[in-house]
């Protein structure tokens, strides 16, 4: 009897180390798309504004904003939040437009298999290996360094141009 209780205590301790109840941390992810519209202000200056994007034309610029919120009661570990977004079909990524406070941004040119910093990306053109350009990017990835406390939120964004 004594040995069984002892064994049971150890089993419980072992379980609490590796097993976590689901839905203890609830992170919600939302995406919005906005058209970056140029307009002429009353003083004649040309400025841009963001409007909802439903109908677009070739050549239009669109900003995607991805917001993540920790709706759970436990903090999300630092350095573990990784947001990945493919460059949508019929568009191409606009160089240097990806943004994310506290993030390290990497890109893929092989459909999301591997990710590298922009400066390290290479493609093969006409049999020669050359540095990739923004038009070659297939996927964007943000790695969020800080922890995300309960109720905290942050966002990342990037711009594309319609082909």
């Amino acid at each position, binding site marked *: 009897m004594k040995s069984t209780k002892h064994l049971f205590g150890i089993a419980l301790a072992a379980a609490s180390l590796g097993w976590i109840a689901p839905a203890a941390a609830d992170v919600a992810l939302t*995406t919005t798309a906005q058209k970056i519209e140029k307009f002429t202000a009353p003083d004649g200056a040309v400025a841009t504004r963001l409007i909802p994007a439903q*109908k677009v034309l070739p050549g239009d610029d*669109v900003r995607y904003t991805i917001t993540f919120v920790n709706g759970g009661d436990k903090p999300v570990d630092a350095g*573990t939040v990784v947001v990945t*977004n493919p460059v949508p079909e019929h568009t191409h990524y606009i160089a240097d437009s990806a943004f994310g406070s506290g993030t390290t941004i990497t890109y893929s040119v092989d*459909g999301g298999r591997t990710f590298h910093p922009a400066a390290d990306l290479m493609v093969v053109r006409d049999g020669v290996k050359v540095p990739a350009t923004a038009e070659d990017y297939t996927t964007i990835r943000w790695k969020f360094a800080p922890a995300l406390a309960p109720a905290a939120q942050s966002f990342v964004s990037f711009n594309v141009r319609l082909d």
Partner: protein
Amino acid sequence: MDARARHDAAEARQWIGATLEVLAFAALCGASMHAAAVGTAAGGRIDSAAQMTYAVGGVAQSPVTSNATSMIVDEVLDCVVVDQDAAPVAVASGATGAALTFDVTNTGNGSEPMRLAIETALAGDDFDPTSAAIYLESNGTPGLQIGAGGDTAYTAGANDPVLARDASALVYVASSIPLGLAPGAIGRTALRAVPRTVFAETGTDDPANAAFPVPGTTYPGAGDAAIGGGNVAAVVGSTFARNALKLRALGAYAIDAGAVTLTKVATSVSDPRGGNRVLPGSIVHYQITVAVAPSGSAHDLVVRDPLPATLGYVPSSLTVAPLPAGQQADDDFLPAGVDGTGFDGANDAVVVTLGDLAGGAQTVISFNATVR
């Protein structure tokens, strides 16, 4: 890389999939013979969703996927007209059916009928071509052919050519050239193309009309009905800017006295003794070739060949190939005969009436003459 090549390259990336490196784009970058590259097809959907991975307490959690956003590509209305004649088309004064050739390309991103129009009363030239008519290349034979088996006569609104995104059509303008013009005189005619949706929405296809739209004008729901479920708007594109200069192209005719050339050759001589020497009684076979330059045309053409006193026309030896309709290759001609082709005994001349000939036409006239 132009937008079209980028689009093709993106599809290739997704198709390649497993390979680590993106292969050369060279094979996908086709050269366009026409105007600006077109964009993503109207009605196309642009979808995006983000994915997130994270860990809590050292344990990786199930990945989270965001909502999906979706946009629709509207239809851009755009076209470009380009003159295909490398130089002014050589014509004779009084010619009819003289053809200018144009290429009309749909540079928008959806299928669209194109409404065509001619502008003739243009300033800055020496004469105005008249009776201009539009024909659509339709019979597979290069160049304009009018009549049975020829190209299709165009009527605005009745047979506007429907061009798919990035497709082109060859269009001819056939005109009459006034009489009495001096060689070198230039006459200009312009062909204009306007996407028919613009005409349907505004009632005009004339850039001079106040209702003619500027780039960016949007007609909700007027996009290509075959795509987007009628949800697609039609938006006037950039070639409508600056008084629609690209929607029209100028063609020109130049009066050219050298549009028709005549060549006469003595192809054989047979003498009374069975040889081929020129002796009294020898019969000489003459061949006259009448050729119209490919870019030229002839109007009311009559060929006269006066014979010298030393030659006598051999009766009934005249042949004309091809023989124009209404002419007979006999010796009679008006007013004694029924046509304008024959032998003019009073003036000792072979006369052949060829009428109107189109560019590239060739006629061979032959007859025999006796050495006196």
